[in-house]
């Protein structure tokens, strides 16, 4: 009689495999330079920044980095399952005692751990080196990192769903890049079009924003970088049209609505991933 099987080594294996991926390494380097924000670093060294620069510059950091965050999770998640299906390792792993849910959990855990490490290290170094965040402001920074991780998890699940549903690696990668393009570029153009062409644009604007996790996360983080909700007075440009509209419609409740929206994305995508993967032919 054999003993109980364990998926911990598989999680650790996928974590290591993810860290070895060239895309993750390239993204980490680019993300590091984005996060440390060299111009700010120069200004800080030359003492050109005002004493209360931190909330403003943290919101700059958010607006600068958040649109690129999906580029970490989307390609990595998109190839995760389909690559194993193509190489045959998926059927090999699933021929053991591990369940499909166990496998998917291990895969997602490994990917999440690897991408989370990159984001925490990137923002962590930015906080310590570039922004010289004091202990008091660590909470604000932690909020930004938390929302970034939430966005990363959503994008990872979305990409994994794509990977589950596609049969070829190239197709999955293509869809992943198209999704990033849709969230980052097309949605902004769409919003702009609505503002310019629709008389009563607010409901469309709200709908567009909650259907766009990167934009929702960005607005949520920008609000989070402000100690008080006077952002519309102090730093409205970082909120953008969507953020300003949401705040004017929902007021203080906007934070909770955005957070709830992101959590709904997370739970829905996770449920879909596990449900579809359990029911489909694995190979």
């Amino acid at each position, binding site marked *: 009689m*054999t*003993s*109980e*099987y*364990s*998926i*911990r*080594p*598989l999680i650790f*294996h996928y974590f290591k*495999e993810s860290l*070895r991926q060239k895309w993750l390494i390239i993204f980490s380097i680019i993300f590091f330079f984005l996060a440390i924000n060299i111009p700010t670093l120069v200004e800080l060294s030359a003492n050109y920044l005002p004493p209360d620069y931190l909330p403003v510059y943290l919101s700059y950091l958010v607006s600068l980095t958040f649109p690129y965050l999906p580029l970490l999770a989307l390609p990595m998640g998109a190839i995760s399952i389909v690559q194993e299906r193509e*190489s*045959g*390792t998926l*059927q*090999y*792993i*699933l*021929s*053991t*005692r*591990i*369940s499909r849910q166990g496998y998917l959990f291990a895969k997602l855990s490994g990917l999440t751990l690897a991408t989370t490490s990159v984001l925490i290290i990137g923002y962590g170094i930015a906080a310590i080196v570039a922004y010289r965040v004091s202990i008091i402001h660590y909470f604000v920074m932690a909020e930004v990192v938390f929302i970034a991780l939430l966005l990363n998890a959503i994008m990872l699940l979305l990409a994994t769903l794509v990977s589950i549903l596609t049969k070829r690696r190239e197709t999955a990668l293509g869809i992943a890049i198209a999704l990033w393009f849709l969230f980052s570029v097309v949605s902004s153009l769409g919003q702009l079009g609505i503002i310019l062409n629709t008389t009563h644009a607010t409901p469309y604007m709200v709908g567009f924003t909650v259907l766009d996790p990167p934009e929702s996360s960005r607005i949520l983080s920008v609000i989070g970088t402000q100690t008080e909700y006077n952002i519309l007075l102090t730093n409205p440009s970082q909120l953008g049209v969507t953020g300003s509209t949401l705040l004017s419609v929902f007021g203080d409740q906007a934070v909770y609505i955005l957070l709830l929206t992101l959590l709904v994305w997370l739970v829905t995508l996770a449920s879909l991933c596990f449900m579809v993967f359990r*029911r*489909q*032919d*694995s*190979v």
Partner: protein
Amino acid sequence: MTEILKVINLYKSFGKTQVLNGVSFAVNRGEAVLLLGPNGAGKTTIIKCILGLLNYRGNIMVDGIDAKSKGSLARAKIGYLPQLSSYYETLTVSQHATLMASLKGATKDEVKSALEMAGLSSLKDRLVKALSSGMRQRLGLSIAMLGNPPLLILDEPTSNIDLEGQLEFKKLLEELKESGKAFLISTHLSGLDVLSDRVMILNSGRIVAQGSSDEILNLVGAKDRMYIKIPHSQEEKVRIIANSFGQQAEFKDGWIYLTLRTDDKARFLTSMVQSGIKIEDIIVEQFSIESEYIRIIRSNSYDK
């Protein structure tokens, strides 16, 4: 219970293509069953259904456990060697075997002894991607053995390895067979029928023949070819004997050529000796399941 695997009325389709059409068979404990059939016959699909990799209609029981509702428990009874030995190439032999062992609930000692059995102990620190095809198959077999499963399922085990690797692999299988494991081996042409207790021939998603190699050959009336060298002067005597066996003997350069049923060979030779014919040389070309299976799959069911 003597059956380690029971497949009942298995149906599987991909879109509109029906791949399996009510396949039923059983594998007994300690029995080696060869699943023979052309590419696309449905051999790999049957294996994938047994392993729970594909959804299917029908019932599959592994050691009395329903493979559909209790897949994890059923798979614990199976060691699987896939058609293309697909591994995590960046791991070493030992790391890969240890990872698979954790998913099969096997211990590190079992990993060590499985690698020893497959003759891979000295290569345990070598990267998997640096292994030859034969070594990869041996690694696959050692991993299949982890957890001591009573049933081994091998999908086209010799299709990707060279002749030397095939011979080594067959030797390894013989050793495992002696240890009492049951085997289900799928192949299109491999020479593995010598290891099997029973052969099932699959065509277009149906089992068209099954039984021992000899039984199937007898059912299809398979005959052996004989080449016998005799003095030229005795050709007429041989022609008469051949006619009495219902055969036409052909002569060329002092050699007689004729085909005979396997169980008629000895009687034919005895008749020649008793008639005073001097046999100078003899060559017998035996028919095998492999040489006959194309004829079998083109004909009606020979299922016993």
